[in-house]
């Protein structure tokens, strides 16, 4: 295990772990849910990429076993991570979680208000019809 390959793999892992730690730090430190989402997405991407790559290297180089499952794992996380982040942030926004007060711009606010007003109008119309 303690061969050069092993150490290389371990370094990969360590780097991934560090990235994860940073994103956890971000999760604690950043001021609003959207910003924290950015940090959270980090460990889903780079951190996992490094750790699983490290593991892949380890099994390949040390244990002499090419594990496609690990590759699949990376792919899967890369596919799902962003969508999960997107869904969660959107849910937050649509349930009225405010942006950090120092945010500079909010293009969605107006659009959403408009959309809802229209929906309300439609709903009342259909109620009247009934």
């Amino acid at each position, binding site marked *: 295990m303690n061969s050069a390959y092993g150490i290389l793999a371990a370094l990969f892992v360590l780097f991934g772990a560090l990235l994860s730690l940073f994103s956890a730090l971000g999760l604690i430190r950043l001021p609003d849910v959207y910003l924290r989402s950015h940090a959270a997405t980090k460990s889903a991407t780079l951190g996992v990429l490094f750790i699983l790559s490290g593991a892949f290297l380890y099994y390949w180089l040390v244990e002499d076993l090419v594990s496609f*499952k690990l590759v*699949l794992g990376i792919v899967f996380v890369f596919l799902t*991570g962003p969508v999960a*982040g997107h869904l969660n*942030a959107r849910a937050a926004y649509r349930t009225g979680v405010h942006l950090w007060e120092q945010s500079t711009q909010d293009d969605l606010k107006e659009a959403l208000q408009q959309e809802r007003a229209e929906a309300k109008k439609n709903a009342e119309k259909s109620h009247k019809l009934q």
Partner: protein
Amino acid sequence: MASQFLINLLIAFLWMFLYDDPSFPRFIVGFLLGMVFIGLLNRFLKRDFYLRKVVAVLNLLGIFIRELFLSSFTVIFQILKPKLTIRPGIVALQTELKSDGELTLLSCLICLTPGTLTLDVSDDNRTLYIHAMDIGDAEQLKLQIRNSFEKAIMEVTR
């Protein structure tokens, strides 16, 4: 048709990989399994998918990885800085991409690169609302996305 074949192929490979046994029989079993699935569930596959240049894919991948690393470190830097100097915000991005697949790919790529996050999609699929950690210049951000991701995606898909 082609997309179905692709997915089928994908499933066959997936099967093989899962067993950690890249042999032909495994591939065949996976392929047959895939055929069964697609046969059963083909209602979900509404659109066709054309096989395009591999180069375009690789190019996209390259752009993505570059963005991933660059912006990751920017974000980490922000997190580790003792005082927050970021100016976050939500930017509306008009996209020329039309198909669901393109749109999804774009927003996934946007999400995957730290510092940006697809917050919402308008009902007509024309506008993406992106939360950025540090907008700087909003227009420049939009331009960057259009030039890198959107273009590369179109290369792949059209």
